[in-house]
């Protein structure tokens, strides 16, 4: 096998690997979420739900590493720089891959910081599921764009056509939309941070005062604001 063909094979392998692992992570996420509401005494279901959370977490870590490896092998081995910088399909694929990487990185970060207790908090559950869903949908789009890049059709073509998405046209936002979005996101983050700071200030004083008071039997401990 020529050396170049061998190097391209690494991209194919890492691409298949991350697709499989991240799909497993999403499927496990769905099962674990279903386990919040579907509670039966069925042992198999309970076992499945119990395993789903660590499976989703570990598969997401493995999938993210394989995704990064796939990005590296794709950029270094598969296409020359002229193609990377000029093909609209390729640029769209890079953009969606960046979004997928962000989703899955945040998915892992949220789970790593929250631990398995995440499933006890509805807000975190919703965020975790939204990140996993965003990661999975962007991953599907990456695969579909990859199919177009290889000159093939994709199973998603019908849906993409219905939604008016053409992966052959370079997707860019206008400058005004870019500045507007950036400003809106910055404002939102600042507003959330300020609100949290105010909440902490108003709630920590009573807590400090409360620390001087003997604990009331049966009282619940103070909770972090985002839980």
């Amino acid at each position, binding site marked *: 096998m*020529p050396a170049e063909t061998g190097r391209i094979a690494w991209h194919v392998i890492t691409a298949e690997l991350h697709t499989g692992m991240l799909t497993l992570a999403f499927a496990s996420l769905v099962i674990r979420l279903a386990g919040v509401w579907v509670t039966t005494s069925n042992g198999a279901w309970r076992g499945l739900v119990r395993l789903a959370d660590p499976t989703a977490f570990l598969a997401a870590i493995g999938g993210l590493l394989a995704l990064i490896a796939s990005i590296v092998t794709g950029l270094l081995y598969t296409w020359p720089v002229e193609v990377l*910088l000029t093909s609209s399909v390729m640029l769209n694929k890079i953009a969606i891959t960046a979004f997928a990487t962000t989703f899955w990185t945040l998915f892992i970060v949220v789970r790593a910081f929250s631990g398995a207790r995440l499933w006890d908090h*509805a807000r975190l559950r919703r965020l975790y599921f939204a990140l996993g869903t965003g990661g999975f949908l962007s991953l599907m789009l990456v695969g579909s764009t990859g199919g177009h890049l290889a000159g093939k059709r994709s199973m998603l073509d019908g849906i993409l056509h219905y939604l008016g998405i053409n992966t052959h046209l370079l997707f860019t*936002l206008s400058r005004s939309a870019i500045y507007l979005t950036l400003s809106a996101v*910055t404002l939102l983050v600042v507003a959330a941070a300020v*609100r949290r700071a105010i909440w902490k200030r108003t709630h920590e004083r009573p807590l400090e005062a409360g620390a001087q008071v003997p604990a009331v039997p049966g009282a619940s401990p103070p909770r972090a604001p985002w839980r």
Partner: protein
Amino acid sequence: MCLVLPVLVLVAGGWGGAAAAAPPAIDGRITEGEYASHYQARRIGMEVHWTIEGDSIYFGLKVPATGWLAIGWDPSGPIMEGEDIILGYIRGKELFLQDYFANSSVTHANDVSLGGRDDVLESSGSEDPQSTTIEFRRRLDTGDRFDRPITPGSHTVQLAYAPSDDFVTYHGEKRTVVKIDFFAGGAQEAGLFARPRSIDSGRGPLVSWLLTVAVGVVTIAGLTAAYLLWSARGRGRGRG
């Protein structure tokens, strides 16, 4: 300077022109003086020979490898999109040569599969352990919508080959772009790939694309951060 530049271009490009007495024989061998013009892409070692006779053009292509080889001309861009391509290889002693069209910047499909015609009229090829030679004839203007007519004036011509017959194998560094005037003779290396539209229209699209990607990433991360920072208890609801 006006005289020196064309001379330099022809010498550097390796172009040679000679009057061919008769139409080349499509026999899979290129002999000295068989074609009216020839060009050797020195960087990749690929030879292109051609003769225009009547309403046809005869091509002879030779590469120092035993995989597929291809010649394409007149991409609309970016890269090879819209290009008329002839791609062939020899397996055993049999020549496989087809008329292709670049249906995207980085992919191609044979004309027949796209609803066009295969317009190679005659072809022949040979292979030895070091090289592959393919000769073919086609009309200057085939009338097929997936072909590009060969007309007087400069054409952007892309040359490529690979070590393997499997033409899904990427050609890697064995590619070049040349400006050739098939009627007048003369060729000039144009660097790798034709200048794509996105570059010709300035750096705007690439900068906008980069900003769009950055905005997407920042939006996902920002919304997540804002969601986490936002106090559920502060709103007086949101159990859990």
